[in-house]
């Protein structure tokens, strides 16, 4: 059974120079064991952890809330399982590989970076923090993403998104860069949307978007927001061969809800 241990400085470095990072070999670890190790490491003072051989273990980063708000940087090597960073509380997780369904489920704060693609329900019910996906994602990204007072989650996807992007979205910012140059062929975008904003590089047809959504070109204030997050996206993925100027030179479409209560009349007598 693999054991978590703290490496002597200089013994082994992770992909981004993990000097002194604690290392967990997840090859034979179950989900619960892996998350137990992470929590033990956090409580024993580790601030950087590298998990190798991840293959489908779920909920990575979930049980790491402490009243003192301890924070760790977690590097995941392999394929992260479902609900990566669910309820994440202030930590930073970088996945060197793909992620599956439910990344950032009800995430509270912190940051998730995926150097690959994500599956369905990315950012589901996310209520704070930032998620950056280098490539594309599956169905229902930002499903019921929300915001409250100072908390405003941000989701940036480098590739394309599939159907039901922003379904029942209640807050936050979603940016889809579509860098692979695919035309947005998703349908039901923003169905039931009643808060937040979605920015799509390029354009969409009215028929691809839910009835509750206004489609307009991004304005100057929007471009300022986009500039900030496109810069952050490119900082996180230097391997993406394009520049901020190039990305921002394309037209962006803004999707916003027409009403904060699209179904307000539905159950009214």
């Amino acid at each position, binding site marked *: 059974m693999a054991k978590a241990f703290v490496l002597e400085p200089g013994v082994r470095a992770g992909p981004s120079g993990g000097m002194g990072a604690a290392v967990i070999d997840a090859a034979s670890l179950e989900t619960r064991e892996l998350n137990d190790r992470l929590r033990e490491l956090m409580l024993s003072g580790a601030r950087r952890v590298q998990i190798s051989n991840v293959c489908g273990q779920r909920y990575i980063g979930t049980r790491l809330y402490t009243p003192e708000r301890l924070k760790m940087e977690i590097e995941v090597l392999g*394929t992260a*399982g479902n609900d990566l960073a669910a309820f994440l509380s202030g930590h930073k997780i970088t996945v060197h590989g793909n992620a599956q369904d439910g990344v950032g489920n009800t995430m509270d704060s912190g940051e998730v970076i995926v150097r690959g693609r994500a599956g369905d329900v990315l950012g589901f019910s996310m209520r704070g923090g930032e998620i950056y996906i280098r490539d594309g994602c599956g169905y*229902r990204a930002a499903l019921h993403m929300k915001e409250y007072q100072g908390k405003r989650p941000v989701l940036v996807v480098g590739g394309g998104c599939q159907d*039901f992007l922003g379904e029942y979205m209640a807050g936050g910012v979603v940016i889809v860069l579509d860098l692979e140059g695919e035309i947005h062929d998703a349908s039901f975008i923003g169905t039931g949307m009643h808060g937040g904003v979605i920015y799509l590089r390029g354009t969409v047809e009215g028929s691809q978007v839910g009835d509750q959504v206004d489609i307009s070109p991004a304005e100057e204030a929007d471009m300022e927001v986009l500039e900030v997050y496109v810069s952050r996206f490119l900082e996180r993925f230097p391997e993406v061969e394009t520049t901020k100027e190039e990305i921002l030179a394309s037209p962006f479409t803004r999707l916003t809800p027409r009403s904060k209560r699209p179904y307000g009349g539905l159950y009214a007598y």
Partner: protein
Amino acid sequence: MHRKRRSRRELYNKEICACSIFGAMNREGGRFTGEGVMKAIASMRVRGNGLGGGFAAYGIYPDHRDLYAFHLMFTGSTDPARRAAKKELEAHLSRKFDVYFDEEIPTDDSVFVRDPPLLWRYFVLPRKEGDDAATADEDYIVGEIMAVNTRIENAYVFSSGKNMGCFKGVGYPEEIGEYFMLDRLYRAHTWTVHGRFPTNTQAWWGGAHPFGLLDTTVVHNGEVSSYGTNRWYLEMYGYACTLQTDTEVIAYAADLLMRRQRLPIDVVAKILAPPIWNAIDRMDEKEKKLLTTLRMAYGPLLMNGPFAVIIGETGRMIGLTDRIRLRPLTAATKGEMFYISSEEASIRLISPKLDRVWTPKGGEPVIGEIKSMNRMKRVC
């Protein structure tokens, strides 16, 4: 003598499950053991609950490639009951088929499984006499399977194709794989696998996936909430649902549409998981007419509810989800290999480097084919 048909009241009507499904195919036709797919499905153990697992393997009986391989389970609660069912089945079989070879399906009894039935396989060809002489072999076989499954107490044909076989039971799929020694005894060019999480019906050996008829098999994650409608429709075409699990209707629908009516898979997908009406409204006239006609003609075969399935056939493996993708399915390729799975990690476990990984669109089939084999099939 045939016993009376089982009472409908004994049959449960539906199940919900959060199962795992996995499929691997060598598109060049190269055969491999079940070891890899057992490892892959075991990695999704949390998706099942140990109450059902099963495999479909294509290309495993090359020495009997021209004979139909019937896999039977005899499920009585005592050994004499199982033997009696076997005796009755064999009497029936010898009247209707030429049996070339039969044997007990080898199992590793050191692997613990709960209440294993007596498992036997028969390699047969139909013996059609009298009015049956004009019936196509495959229709004859389907009719006989329905007769066995509805009339012979405790006997179920759970696999009936040529050069392929299903292996299934109550347990985690990797345990079922070990029980049948799939990593040692069989080499297939296509494997599909299922780990079950039944919630609406009790677990029993016949209720495990895959469900198959001739060489078409289905493994399924989801719930067919249209089960009642689908079932009545299929009964009109002679399909009897006896296995107490909703997935059975998908297998029979696939047989009806793909084998009997020879519809291409793209059309079949539009019948099982049709686009919604306002998407149809936006299509051009020709497409609109086709899809409206399909919805009219095949409305009762629409599979409502969330699902992801892998349909296996000789030389073809098809992944399909419901129109709005309420169950997960990931597809991938690596060289000649084609994979479909509930989760990407299980594919990476046995093939860390992949050429392409993607999330298939809801309602649109992803298809892997063994080219040489399909050409042969079309010509026949």
